[in-house]
């Protein structure tokens, strides 16, 4: 069997259907199978990424019907990069959650199935070449996310889940409306075909469709003012899930926005729109993060802020800016992942997740605190950690377009980030110890391994950014090459 992009979807689905059966044999399978799947997918990622860099974009036809009649998957350097990133994050988070104490035995089955499907759905969104299929994957992500958000019973998870669901349902309504209008005006659902034919739609209608899509997917991408769900969901979800949201689910929403603007619709002003929305999102989120007393919530707002900066990067639209944006996404995934993962141990026993409860934990949980501090240093963009390079790229791209105000705002935001992250670090290390040593939860060995992987990656990329920049360059080229995308997908039809 040749390795192809559909493995990203089919194998996890098969696993998800198999897990309930194997669970009857031995409950340990529930935890192991997702890991095996993710490992396999990592292998698939490596193979396919190599293939892409040598032969170019892979467009896989499904069910034997060439696009636009069938559904297809597109594994380009761009979408492939995101899919690989998601797989990697999924694997790391799986390692972390393997013995996460709070996921006790009985609902573990549900947790792992939902978690696996969250990743699969996000990868599906990134890979699919069909707008309605994308919607279906969005719903897969959505339903697993709602359920995972309200996974814990002892907290306000249900409240957060309901808010998420409410906005998510809004999103699907708007997206479906967009699909209706789109299909009825050009009679196709394939994204390459849409890109090819979108100039046939009357401009006013096209803009309306675009707005419906942007608002719909903007909810997933945490665009202000559509992101009311995010802080609640992040703070109430189990620790690994928070990391998965910021590292995987949000990336998918962002991907769609990028696709809409770069490939599907050719609308004047959409780039500026993205910059402005990104800036507003960032400013509001970072300002809100400043005054948080809840650690997870603070991280959530910070995460929204980062996504805003990603939007800004893609709004600038030059090749350098896209590289910066992708780099930001990568960094956001690994760094925010590390922060979420380590913070769940820091506030393990505090139901309110208060920052003040961290007092002196640096002594009690030295490794976890160290990793958290490392993540904090990296996310505010201090060299020599990976966060610095992405920010530098972004600033250079902005300077290239002479967007001086943008540079200033991004840097002011960076100062705000310094304030609230260093407040936490101060609490961790330089305050009197309040907790007894019995009251802290020592991280399990696999949690340590997964967090260390992320930590090492942060330092490695920080010291030697060339590790990833070549991939990012290819990805940026792939995204900008709209004609190539259409040609690759519709190769049978157009010739």
């Amino acid at each position, binding site marked *: 069997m040749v390795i192809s992009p559909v493995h990203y979807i089919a194998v996890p689905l098969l696993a998800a259907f198999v897990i309930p059966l194997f669970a009857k044999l031995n409950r340990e399978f529930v935890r192991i199978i997702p890991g095996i799947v993710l490992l396999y997918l990592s292998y698939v990622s490596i193979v396919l990424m190599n293939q892409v860099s040598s032969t170019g974009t892979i467009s896989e036809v499904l069910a034997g019907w060439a696009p636009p009649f069938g559904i297809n998957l597109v594994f380009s350097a761009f979408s492939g990069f995101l899919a690989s990133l998601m797989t990697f994050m999924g694997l790391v988070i799986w390692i972390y959650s393997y013995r996460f104490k709070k996921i006790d035995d009985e609902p573990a089955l549900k947790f792992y199935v939902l978690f696996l499907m969250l990743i699969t759905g996000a990868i599906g969104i990134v890979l699919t070449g069909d707008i309605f299929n994308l919607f279906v994957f969005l719903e897969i992500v959505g339903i697993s996310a709602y359920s995972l958000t309200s996974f814990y019973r002892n907290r306000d998870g249900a409240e957060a889940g*309901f*808010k998420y669901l*409410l*906005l998510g349902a*809004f999103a699907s309504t*708007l997206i479906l409306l967009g699909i209706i209008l789109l299909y009825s005006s050009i009679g196709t659902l394939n994204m390459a075909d849409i890109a090819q034919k979108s100039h046939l739609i009357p401009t006013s209608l096209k*803009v*309306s469709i*675009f*707005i419906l899509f942007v*608002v719909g997917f903007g909810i997933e991408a945490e665009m202000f*003012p*559509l992101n*009311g*769900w995010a*802080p*609640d969901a992040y703070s109430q979800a189990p620790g690994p899930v928070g990391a998965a949201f910021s590292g995987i689910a949000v990336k998918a929403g962002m991907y769609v926005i990028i696709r809409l603007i770069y490939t599907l619709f050719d*609308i*004047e*002003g*959409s780039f500026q*729109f993205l910059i402005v929305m990104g800036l507003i999102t960032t400013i*509001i989120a970072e*300002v*809100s993060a*400043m*005054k*948080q007393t809840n650690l997870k919530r603070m991280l959530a707002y910070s995460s929204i802020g980062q996504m805003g900066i990603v939007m800004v990067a893609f709004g600038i639209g030059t090749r350098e800016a896209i590289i910066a944006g992708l780099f930001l996404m990568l960094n956001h995934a690994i760094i925010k992942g590390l922060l979420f993962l380590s913070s769940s141990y820091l506030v393990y026993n505090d139901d309110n997740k208060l920052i003040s409860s961290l007092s002196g934990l640096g002594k009690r949980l030295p490794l976890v605190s160290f990793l958290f501090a490392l993540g904090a240093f990296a996310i*505010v963009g*201090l*060299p*020599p950690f990976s966060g*610095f*390079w992405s920010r*530098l790229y972004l*600033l*250079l791209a*902005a*300077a*290239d377009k*002479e967007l*001086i105000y943008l*540079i*200033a705002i991004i*840097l002011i935001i*960076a*100062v705000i980030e*310094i*304030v609230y992250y*260093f*407040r936490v670090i*101060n609490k961790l*290390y*330089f*305050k*009197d110890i309040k907790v007894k040593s019995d009251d802290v939860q020592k991280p399990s060995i696999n949690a340590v391994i997964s967090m260390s992987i992320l930590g090492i990656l942060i330092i490695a990329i920080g010291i*030697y*950014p*060339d590790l990833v*920049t070549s991939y990012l360059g290819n990805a940026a080229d792939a995204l900008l090459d709209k004609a190539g995308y259409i040609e690759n997908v519709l190769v049978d039809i157009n010739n």
Partner: protein
Amino acid sequence: MNTYFVVLLILFGGAIISFAINKVSYLLSGIVAFIATASATVFFYLNVDTDNFVQFSLAGFDFQWGLNSLSLLFTYIVLGLGTLATLYSIQYMRFKNNLGYFYFNFLLGIGSMMGILFSQDFISFFIFWEIMTWSSYLIVVYNGNKTHKIGIKYMIFSGIGAYAMLMSIVMIYADVKSFLIADYIDYISQVGLSGHYLQIILLIVGFGVKSALMPLHVWAPKAYANSPMGYTSLFSGALSKMGVYGLSIVLLSLLTNFNTGENVSLGGLFEGINAEFIRIIVQWLGAITAVMGTLYALKQNDAKKLLAYSSIAQLGYIITGLAIGTELAVMGALFLAVLHAIFKGALFMAMGAVERQAGTTDMTKISGLVRKMPFTFIVTLMSIIALAGIPPLGGFVGKWLLYEGMITSGHYFLVVLIFFSSTAAFLYCYRILFGIFLGQEEKETINVREAPISMLIPMLLLAILTMVFGTYPGLLFEPIANAMSYIGYNDVVWEMSTISNVWGDKVSLDYVSLTIFTVFIVAMIFLTIKNYKGTRYVTTKDISTSGEMPTENENLTFQLNFFQPFERAVAPLYKRSMDKIYNTIGESLDALFNFVRTIYTGNGQTYALYVIVFLVIMLIFKDSIFN
């Protein structure tokens, strides 16, 4: 392997090793740190070569490392002081916790400072700058608990400074398409300054934060005073000099109109403002920093804080000298920069010794330590003489050059300010001497002993250096002259131990020193013999007030409110503290932020409403957003 890489490898590797080895023995950690700095120093000066440039490429940018005469001058400060400070810290830090952490950041700090000096391009400059910042932050908060607000303040200001610098750097890259500092200087000399004023100002802000320039200095006093003293000597002596180094690049290489001879206008928003204007601003800021630093130093009761403010004041002199930019002024400024590192390093170490032995440096609590800690006293005495600029020690030469430079270039009012601040410096110097070492002994300090030998050695070495440079300033003039010729001041005139005044009179310093030292030593011997017997001890705090509570107005304990009359005279100046202004800004921002976050009401329905409102706004304005 290249010299630069090896030096950095030794320092950063040493950092990691001393972090790891702390588990084995707490003493070993410090010893490793000392060995690392010492070997880096030895290796560096054996292989030093100012023409050796290394180029490499990372993340798509070209980097260049190398040394020039200017940065070579600053390496003396960093490595010299660094080695002595690590040696000092072995004993000073001996009984404290987390030594691995301390030395890790310590060496990281030294390494990154060396990195800054090696960097010939803005981006590695910035990277090392940031490493230096966060490693020093981690030491500022080392003492825990009370320090965290200080740490945050330090980090915020450093962040503002660093990001101002970063903004400037990316704008420079957009213009020049290169990160090399030399390229930018070339570029500016070709196209002139117009259109680049923002870059320059941002760079000055960036460097100004580290060199504690008004109004960006508020982080400094507490950060200096609250770090472990072994580090503070480096912090105030070397780390702040990185700001001076940066400023000297900006002020002397970029803002110069001595090379081109033209008076470039900045244009744009800053129409009518030119390079000279920026220089004047910086001069005045420097002078004001000097005066304010001195005034605040007078108020302090804690010797550490006093020295911290004094550092700010001294940096003010240096910056003023650099901003004036005539040959003499620059020479004086650079001389002072080195000297300040030496005597302030010694002073902070001495205070560290006092703190370690006596438990506090509060001048109202201890006194009469001269008998207990004679060597520390001597070091303090000599450093303070140097600090106050009294001949024959080094500080005198620097100040002399500075005054001369200012007078010959016609900055009379600045001279008055600097002179005022210098005179006032006598007062607080006296206070340290008097408050801590002289006077009568207290009960509390009966058991105080002299500091261990490994702490005394660096202090004494530094003290001797002030004397050497006071007598033979030519030793230091040579590298300074080289550095200045690199910047563009050709044919700098200097002599080994002679300085001249405006009128051409020459004074030979070695005779002066010799005379003064002879007199001094004879006097000391005489006084010691005379005072040896017949001393009567009365404790100073045993005050009888006929049953009434003493109030503060009654100056009963002489250490308290030492300079009250003087303070009263300048009281209006104290009122307008920058601290208060920043606090007000901070509080109002806080309130604003608290207001903004109420957008997230917690009601899911409101969020849904936001979606619809957003949708409607987009639909209504769709023609203007997407034309």
